[in-house]
C-alpha cells in the first residue's frame, strides 16, 4: 500500500475572493495552481527522502507519483503517493511514521507543510499579478 496524502488549497480566501470579484474562473485558477504545485511537491518529496534515507538508492523516490487535479464539488486537490504499484510501500511508511524499532523520519508531511508555508502564496501572487490584481 502506498503512503499517500492529499494537498488542497486553503488559507487563500482573500485571493480567491478578489479573483471572483474580477469575474475570473476560480476553479480553473485553483486547478492551474495545483498543476503547477505538483512537480514542486514531487521535487520536495524527493529531496526530503534523500535527506532522511540512511542509504540512498533512489528506489523509493522512483515510486513518487502525483495524481491529476481532482474535484469533489468546490474541493480541489492532488494526491501524492510514495510506494505505489509493485511495491509494498512498507519502507516508505516506516520512514514516514516509524515502527516499533525506529522513530519516524517524515518526508511527506514536511513536504506538504513547506508547500503550504512557502510556495503556495507565492504562486497565488504570481497569478494575481497575471490578472493585474493587487497582491
Amino acid at each position, binding site marked *: 500500500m502506498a503512503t499517500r496524502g492529499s494537498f488542497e488549497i486553503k488559507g487563500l480566501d482573500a485571493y480567491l475572493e478578489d479573483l471572483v470579484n474580477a469575474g475570473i474562473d476560480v476553479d480553473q485558477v485553483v486547478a492551474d495552481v495545483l498543476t503547477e504545485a505538483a512537480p514542486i511537491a514531487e521535487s520536495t518529496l524527493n529531496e526530503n527522502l534523500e535527506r532522511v534515507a540512511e542509504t540512498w538508492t533512489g528506489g523509493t523516490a522512483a515510486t513518487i507519483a502525483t495524481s491529476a487535479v481532482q474535484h469533489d464539488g468546490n474541493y480541489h486537490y492532488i494526491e501524492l503517493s510514495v510506494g505505489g504499484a509493485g511495491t509494498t510501500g*512498507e519502507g516508505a*511508511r*516506516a520512514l514516514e*511514521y*516509524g*515502527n*516499533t*524499532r*525506529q*522513530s*519516524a523520519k*517524515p518526508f511527506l*508531511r*514536511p513536504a506538504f*507543510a513547506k508547500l503550504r*508555508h512557502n510556495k503556495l502564496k507565492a504562486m497565488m501572487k504570481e497569478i494575481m499579478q497575471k490578472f493585474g490584481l493587487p497582491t
Partner: protein
Amino acid sequence: MSIIFERVESALATIIPTVPFALAPYKGTLPDLYIVHQLLPSSAQQHADGAETERSYLVQVSVWKKGGLAALPDVDSAMIAAGFQKSDERQLPQDIETGHYGLAIDYLYL
C-alpha cells in the same frame, strides 16, 4: 523547544491506568502496550522585525499494542487537556516480529 517535550510527557503521564511512554523509539523490552512520541519538523508561524514570534509544533504520538487496537488508552483527552489540537490519525502496519499493532496520531500545539 524542550518545553514541548515536557508538555507532551506531562500530558501522557495523566493517562489512567498508567501506560509506559518514551521519546521514540522505545528502548529495551517492549511492553504489551506502550506509547512513543516525537516532534515532527515544525516551523515558525509568524515573524516581527526579523524575529520569530510564533511557532507551531506538530507531535506524533504512536500507541503500540499487542493483540489489536481495541480499548486503547485515552490519549486524545490527555493531549487535548494539555492544549493540543488533534490532527491526522492512521493505523500502522503490524510488527510481525513483536505482534504489536500501531496507531499514530498527530497533535498540533500553537
